[in-house]
């Protein structure tokens, strides 16, 4: 099969988001893979919402330039997205609500009449549209009814049956009037079990797998669903999810709980992170482990809250006053998000550092299907590593005087859980000597700065992972360089180029900072190659970081900063 895209659009506040998610789940339960994307303004009511689902036989994490089925619950949907229609695209709408004059492939569904016949609420237009869409795509209507039944299970049979009528009515319109237009894109087939999750869901799941016990946040788009996920799960998982009064309190609560011995994380977007930065530095000098999730959106300031950008890379890498080590990771997709999130908690504990996990609206809010088997296997193999945390078994061996900031070769000092009998120590935001007491003397200062810096060296030797190279670096002339959420897009661009007979390579960084300078420099030492930097920002921030660290300057750049993600087609167009 070829891939296809279904999109539904309508006025904000009328259930477009839920409807899109239901459609994604029908697709995955029917044996397909999906990647979806929502477009919405920073409003609750009014304004335009659109939800597109890209469906494919195998794994997919990019959007298609074309829309194959466009469901228009209002005229604006058509106007905004008609440029992406092709001659074979189907457009579903109600002629009683608005007219479309252009010659297009129309599928008329009388939403208004059906609503009035069955006395439905306006929001049930979505349910009709789902029934009709499934009919049009040769999909599994029983599967759709099952999802709706699950969704309304708490509300009882009456509500379920009421909703079923609208599914059936939509479905029947197609069967009655549009048999010849049915395109069998969604025929149910065997396939492995899949989860439909966003990057934020993936971070949340990764945190649970890693045994995070405290998550603190202040709502901020596009990071907020991590807080709502973890809060909804907390009675099951035993975690405490706290919505604090501001981001300053957020990070300081987590510093407190981490100090007291539990794995702790915070999550936010750029503006919230700006408020936290003071305490990133504080956690840095006190060497208190912390995982920080940043879902970027276009700034500066309030910027464009519901759109995407990779504009906070340098801010994150250099966040915090003073000099101290931290680790920045940037997963490329949901699978990497689960793995790297769980790894982040280990790194935070092992190196007693802040580990920043970078996402953006594109990754955080898009759903991508993830194989259940992948998650099961990951859960099997993941091992919690708390590093040099002194546990109940080893605390008896503690020498008489415990030194929290003991000078060691690897830079990492043993860490004691407060409450351990017979000892005490302070985590000191002032420069300190080995036992934690404040110092302003020259030598202990140098010792501690150097000790903290050695942790970076240890990390580079033990846990840093080189960027993955997709394609053949030796053979290809074009070499893409990117990081984080652009992964799926570049992989798709590589596929498209291949069909044109062009070989390309792709260096994808997800262990973003620090990196091994020598090894990374070697990746850029090949002659006669065209390196192309690809980022969703206007400065080419990773390019700057790379140049700063290695002297390698990538001249060719594909940068997009209009709030939308770069597309594979744009990339291909630049290679010709």
């Amino acid at each position, binding site marked *: 099969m070829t891939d296809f895209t279904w999109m539904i659009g309508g006025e904000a506040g009328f259930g477009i988001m839920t409807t899109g998610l239901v459609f994604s*789940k029908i697709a*995955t339960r029917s044996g397909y893979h999906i990647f979806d994307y929502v477009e919405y303004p920073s409003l609750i009511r009014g304004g335009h919402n659109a939800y597109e689902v890209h469906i494919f036989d195998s794994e997919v994490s990019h959007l298609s330039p074309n829309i194959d089925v466009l469901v228009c619950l209002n005229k604006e949907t058509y106007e905004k997205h008609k440029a992406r229609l092709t001659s074979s695209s189907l457009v579903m709408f109600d002629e009683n609500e608005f007219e479309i004059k252009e010659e297009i492939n129309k599928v008329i569904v009388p939403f208004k009449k059906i609503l009035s016949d069955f006395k439905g609420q306006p929001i049930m237009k979505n349910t009709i549209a789902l029934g009709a869409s499934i009919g049009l795509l040769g999909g599994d209507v029983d599967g759709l009814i099952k999802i709706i039944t699950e969704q309304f299970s708490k509300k009882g049979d009456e509500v379920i049956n009421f909703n079923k009528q609208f599914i059936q009515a939509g479905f029947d319109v197609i069967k009655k009037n549009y048999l010849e237009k049915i395109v069998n894109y969604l025929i149910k087939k065997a396939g492995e*079990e*899949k*989860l*439909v999750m966003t990057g934020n*869901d993936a971070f949340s*799941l990764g945190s*649970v*797998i890693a*045994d995070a*016990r*405290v998550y603190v946040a202040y709502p901020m788009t596009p990071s907020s669903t991590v807080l709502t996920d973890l809060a909804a*799960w907390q*009675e*099951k*998982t*035993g*975690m*405490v999810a*706290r919505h*604090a*009064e*501001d981001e*300053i*309190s957020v990070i*300081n*609560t*987590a*510093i*407190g*709980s*981490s*100090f*007291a*011995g*539990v794995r*702790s994380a915070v999550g936010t977007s750029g503006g919230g992170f700006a408020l936290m930065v*003071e*305490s990133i530095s*504080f956690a840095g000098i*006190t060497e208190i482990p912390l995982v920080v999730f940043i879902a970027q959106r276009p700034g500066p300031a309030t910027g464009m809250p519901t759109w995407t950008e990779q504009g906070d890379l340098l801010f994150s890498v250099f966040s915090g006053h003073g000099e101290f080590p931290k680790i920045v990771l940037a997963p490329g997709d949901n699978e990497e998000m689960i793995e790297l999130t769980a790894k982040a908690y280990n790194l935070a504990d092992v190196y007693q550092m802040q580990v920043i996990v970078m996402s953006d609206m594109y990754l955080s809010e898009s759903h991508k299907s993830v194989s*259940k088997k992948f*998650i099961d296997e990951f*859960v099997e193999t993941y091992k*919690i590593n708390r590093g040099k945390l002194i546990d109940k078994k080893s605390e008896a061996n503690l020498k008489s005087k415990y030194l929290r900031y003991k000078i060691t070769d690897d830079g990492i000092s043993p860490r004691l*859980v*407060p*409450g*351990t009998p*017979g*000892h*005490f*120590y*302070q985590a*000191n*935001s*002032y420069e300190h000597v080995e036992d934690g*007491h*404040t110092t302003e003397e020259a030598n202990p200062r140098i010792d501690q700065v150097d000790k903290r810096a050695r942790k970076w060296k240890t990390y580079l030797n033990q846990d840093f992972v080189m960027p993955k190279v997709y394609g053949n670096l030796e053979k290809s002339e074009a070499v893409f360089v990117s990081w984080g959420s652009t992964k799926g897009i570049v992989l798709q661009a590589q596929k498209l180029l291949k069909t044109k007979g062009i070989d390309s390579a792709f260096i994808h960084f997800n262990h973003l900072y620090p990196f091994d300078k020598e090894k990374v420099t070697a990746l850029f030492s090949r002659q006669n190659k065209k390196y192309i930097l690809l980022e969703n920002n206007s400065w080419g921030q990773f390019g700057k970081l790379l140049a700063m660290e290695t002297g390698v300057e990538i001249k060719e750049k594909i940068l997009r900063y209009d709030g939308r993600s770069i597309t594979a087609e744009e990339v291909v167009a630049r290679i010709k």
Partner: protein
Amino acid sequence: MIASTIQDFSGYNPTWCPGCGDWGIGVAIKQALIQLGLSPSTVAAVFGIGCSGNMNDFLNVYAIHSLHGRAIPNAIGIKIANHKMPVIAIVGDGDCYGEGGNHLVHACRGNHDITIIVHDNSVYGLTTGQVAPTAQKGFKSKSTPNGILETPINPLSLTITSGATFVAQSFAGDALHVVSMIKAGIEHKGFSVINILQPCVTFNKINTYQYYLQRVYKLDENYKKNDFKTAVEKSLEVSEEKFPLGVIYQVKKPTFTDQIPQIMETTLVNKKRFIDFEKIIKPFI
């Protein structure tokens, strides 16, 4: 168990100015901890930044020497992770009522079971004598040479009306009273604030020992500390420069951690790892 001594709790020798109220408060904190049967291993303290915060090096306990204004959220975090451990925050007026004012208000609302010991001397000592949020209107300082334009924060009425369930005031010149208030605050289950009036002998020539001695008085035995309106009224006397000493307000309410079902049986730090991932994964299918 052998009771702890002043020596056990004593770290470095204090560097406070001779005659500073911090000396009395420092000893009172140790005394209170001893009298409560605590040891340096069984209590957690978070210090703010300021002369008071410098107690971090003088008091032996499990501690965080925090940033200016951030001690309260740190203390909340410790409490959430290990709610069986007594947690105190040792802070100054600028620290707690200025830089960290927002945290204070919201911590009151949460009734977090932590004890906030505020050193209130109306000035910033460590940065050499600028005005603090509790200074009387018109107070002249290096940062307000013509006198401060703002009216002072009223720590008592602010915390009582924000939801604190224990609000007390004490005076650094009466160490025994300070001990009794700190003990009562730590023993109270819920958010407790002890505002300790304290002269700064170096930078505050107005609010001296003499000044306070003439204006403080102890609440009498018939004072109804559990009555909200009485407490608010009492707290307003501060604006007339009358300073009641004692527990101004105390009521019993569920604490923040009392209301979290997942830590009813075991503290978060001592819980077993959650591994029933199917429960979380299933709804995504």
